């Protein structure tokens, strides 16, 4: 194997594929990049067995071939190289790299050990603009659960109908359902849903936004593949069932509260500094055209703040987890947000008022039960 590539291009490829290298692993081969030189260019791949990333660039290849080298070391070395042409070759079982006046040798691992994720025929494909994909990811990934005992909640449920695409994430305490319209030709009722971990979605959104390329999405029965330009990410699907999210969206919430998003966010940030570190409890006291925020924590202290709001219903006292509220408010982009509430023990709905985004979201948050 022998090829040359500019340092800048090589570093970019390594960074992109680097998202697929597991931080910790018991399989040594997974700490490696698979580098493949083909007549048309170079491809670099990495996998943690759940997702696999492969990205390529056109470059001058003298001799095709494959090699598996330690990802961390290679990435660190390439980052420090001169901004010049890098000459790579595998010779006498060693991975050799020359750039300007520096030369490196790395000892590779057997290429055959590198796992390949089984490819299945895609049953469905769709294309999404970068901005839409990014918006859907931003609006949902924060709500994904980290509870390992409920694996299905550890991913975003993606559902596609002929007119819209939905991303839904929940950890059982809050939920976000985002959707964007588009045309997605339906082929005879194929299953159009999949649960995909955020570690697959977040990098894809970042690559798409950076390059302003469309995201091409393909679903098969066991995997989802996302293509952005010359980069492909394949993710195993998480096994369901996903909870019946439609049934928990409240229909009889009548009390509407409209607040400035930035003002509410900074107010929550302020008072939550004194909230307890387990529940992050913060109290909303909703009054006519005012929203009072307060925190009172044993052994720590108390805080109060108040905001102008639009509200015309009965007074309401609700407790929330401040972190959950901040996540929601940060994910939205509008000047104002609308809370649609019912009672101190039922789910509240938060939506953006006049979003400029390419996707809109409905956020649900369950209150904390206040103890009086």
């Amino acid at each position, binding site marked *: 194997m022998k090829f040359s590539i500019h340092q800048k291009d090589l570093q970019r490829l390594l960074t992109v594929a680097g998202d697929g290298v597991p931080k910790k692993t018991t399989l040594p081969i997974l700490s490696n990049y698979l580098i493949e030189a083909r007549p048309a260019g170079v491809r670099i791949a990495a996998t943690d067995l759940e997702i696999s990333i492969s990205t390529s660039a056109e470059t001058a290849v003298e001799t095709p071939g494959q090699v598996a080298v330690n990802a961390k070391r290679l990435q660190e070395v390439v980052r420090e190289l001169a901004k010049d042409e890098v000459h790579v070759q595998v010779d006498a079982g060693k991975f050799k790299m020359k750039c300007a006046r520096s030369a490196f040798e790395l000892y590779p691992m057997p290429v055959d050990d590198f796992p390949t994720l089984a490819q299945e025929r895609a049953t469905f494909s769709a294309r999404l603009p970068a901005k839409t994909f990014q918006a859907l990811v931003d609006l949902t990934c924060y709500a994904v659960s980290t509870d390992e005992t409920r694996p299905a909640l550890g991913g975003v449920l993606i559902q596609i109908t002929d007119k819209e695409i939905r991303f839904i994430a929940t950890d059982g305490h809050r939920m976000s359902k985002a959707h964007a319209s588009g045309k997605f030709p339906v082929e005879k009722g194929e299953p159009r849903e999949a649960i995909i971990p955020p570690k697959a979605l977040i990098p894809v959104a970042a690559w798409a936004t950076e390059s302003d390329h469309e995201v091409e999405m393909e679903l098969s029965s066991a995997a989802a593949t996302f293509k952005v330009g010359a980069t492909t990410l394949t993710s195993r699907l998480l096994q369901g069932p996903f909870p019946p999210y439609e049934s928990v969206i409240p229909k009889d919430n009548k009390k509407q509260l409209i607040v400035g998003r930035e003002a509410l966010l900074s107010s929550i940030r302020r008072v939550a500094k004194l909230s307890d570190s387990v529940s992050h409890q913060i109290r909303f006291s909703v009054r006519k055209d005012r929203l009072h925020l307060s925190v009172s924590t044993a052994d720590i202290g108390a805080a109060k703040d108040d905001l102008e709001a639009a509200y015309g219903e009965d007074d309401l006292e609700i407790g929330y987890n401040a972190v959950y509220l901040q996540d929601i408010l940060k994910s939205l982009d509008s000047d104002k947000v609308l809370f649609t509430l019912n009672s101190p023990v039922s*789910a509240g709905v938060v939506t953006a008022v006049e979003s400029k985004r390419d996707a809109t979201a409905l956020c649900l948050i369950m209150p904390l039960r206040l103890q009086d």
Partner: protein
Amino acid sequence: MIMLVDIDAFFAQVEQLRYPPLRGRPVIVGAGVIATSSYEARRRGLKTGMRLSEAKRICPEAVILEGCARTYRCFAESIFALCREVAPSVESYLDEAYLDLAGTERFHGHPLAAGARLKEQIRRVTGLTVSIGIGPNRMLAKMACKKRRPDGLNTLTQEEAPDYLFPRPVQDLPGVGHQTARKLLDLNIRTIGELRAVPVDALERLLGSPGRALHDRSLGLDSRVVTEREVPRTISRETSFHQPATDPDEIEGMLRYLSERAGRTLRELGVAARTVGASFHATDDGGDSRVRTLRSPTDRDSEIFETARELLRAMHTRRVALHRVGVSVTNIAPHVAEQGLLFDEGPLRESSLLKGMDAVRLQYGHSALVSGQALHLLGKLEQDEHGFVLRTPSLTK
């Protein structure tokens, strides 16, 4: 000034008080292992924690009693109540209490006089003898208390501390257990004076963060304050079986029952625990304990039970009968607001059920309600208004 009031051979002394024929005889209280033994028994070489079978071999004439935790609790409470009349801040344990005498000098006069009066009053009210140690901090109070027992009253001042401490074996220093003592002995550190000579950095490297505290204590320094603990650090409920148990239904039924007792105590205190533990002791002398920290604090019986059961199942893998099982909850913090759930209302429903059950039990006794899993225990264990009578080797509950 800090005063330590320690009840002499607590459980055994209570038994000797209640049954005069036992006076002057070696008395052991405990189930499975020795919880406390009288001074007569101690002189024959019996030690707390020793297995009863071994104790019988060493001292066949000893009287072995299972004990009655509630009776002891009553005695302890009345002694601690007397202590609270002496000092504004009292930190009580099972059989001892630390009293912070700061600010009471003009009221009590010399601490020794106050100590003598307190001893006399405790003897008059309860009939029990206590040993009292007085010192400038908790540790020296403890060392002073150990000077002479039973029925002692001693002081140890900061000035006397080096002369008194240095020649004593390291094991006498509070905070030096078996493990630490072994590590120190391996380094030929036998006395507190020798420990004192070790640089604090070296001690810290050897023992971790407790090293620094031990260094301070070797100099007679101790900065721990006396605090009235409203919330216990650990709540543990354990029992031995009348007959070694092999039936999983009986073992898990007991675990369920112990979890309920622990859960109820948590709810009564208005606190929740983040860590749940399970322990067992088998007939072949094998035993183990494990803990697991939960994602969020709990006071629900089922969560405590399910965690404890999982831990026990992971530990108890050999086909041996069990002597004893236990459930403990630690990492206790004030109860925080309960997070509502979108999909599964089970935990919240259980919380309201438990609230109802607690109310019923408060009025009609713990036995008024028995959970399905604990039904296996009916007929196997005695019951009183506090529920099944537990045979706890530590007799703490």
